């Protein structure tokens, strides 16, 4: 007989009553998604550790203070906290991306070439991933974030808008420009994005 999987809400309630092991289950359920979300935006292992840690510290405080309103969306709540911490970090560092999502004039062409010469000779899947990853890294943070949430985390635009605290229109616009910019970068670097 298979063990019945507890819902996020059950784990949260159980933790609020003092069951640490249920909190551990909750962490293990989402640690990968949250950690990779943070890493994909900050691209620094140490910083990701710090933000990931702080995210859970805030989660613990919120849960224990009874301020969490369950709407069946713990992961959105957690990612909103992580998102805000990332924004805080960039603000402190004065590194908040200044490129407007609504602008098509994002100056990706000023950057160094992305592809290695060897790519043209023999493109392999790993190389495509690496190059695509580099192109994604060149996107403004807010475009990168929407791209990841929509394509990799499979979130709806409503969910993305809630987490990033923008309108659905803005989220859709960011996605649109992320794709336009990726395609332009691929074109400029003569990258063939097919296997």
């Amino acid at each position, binding site marked *: 007989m298979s063990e019945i999987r507890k819902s996020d809400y059950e784990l949260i309630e159980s933790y609020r009553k003092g069951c*640490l092991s249920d909190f551990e289950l909750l962490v293990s359920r989402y640690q990968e998604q949250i950690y*990779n979300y943070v890493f994909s935006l900050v691209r620094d292992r140490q910083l990701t550790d710090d933000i990931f840690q702080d995210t859970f510290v805030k989660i613990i405080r919120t849960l224990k203070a009874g301020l969490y309103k369950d709407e069946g969306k713990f992961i959105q709540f957690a990612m909103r906290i992580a998102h805000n911490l990332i924004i805080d970090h960039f603000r402190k560092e004065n590194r908040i991306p200044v490129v407007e999502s609504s602008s098509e004039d994002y100056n990706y062409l000023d950057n160094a070439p992305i592809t290695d010469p060897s790519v043209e000779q023999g493109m392999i899947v790993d190389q495509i991933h690496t190059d695509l990853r580099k192109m994604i890294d060149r996107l403004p943070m807010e475009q990168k974030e929407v791209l990841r949430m929509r*394509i990799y985390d499979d979130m709806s635009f409503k969910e993305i808008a809630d987490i990033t605290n923008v309108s659905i*229109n803005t989220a859709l616009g960011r996605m649109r420009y992320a794709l336009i910019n990726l395609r332009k970068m691929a074109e400029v670097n003569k990258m063939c994005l*097919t296997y």
Partner: protein
Amino acid sequence: MIGNATLNYSEPILDETFTDQIKDAFAADKRMPGKSVLSFIMGFAAAFESLESGMLGTMGVINN
């Protein structure tokens, strides 16, 4: 229309290959949190728990 808002953009249409490539690029770059980070979180959760019970205990003493 969603609620009172009018959407200016529709979701961009992506060909499957491009979507898969983006997905794979993210997947290929996957990281996992280290044990020390997870231990810290669980330690904090446990400490918070004891702190809370301690505080409640103190309140109990005061109330009595």
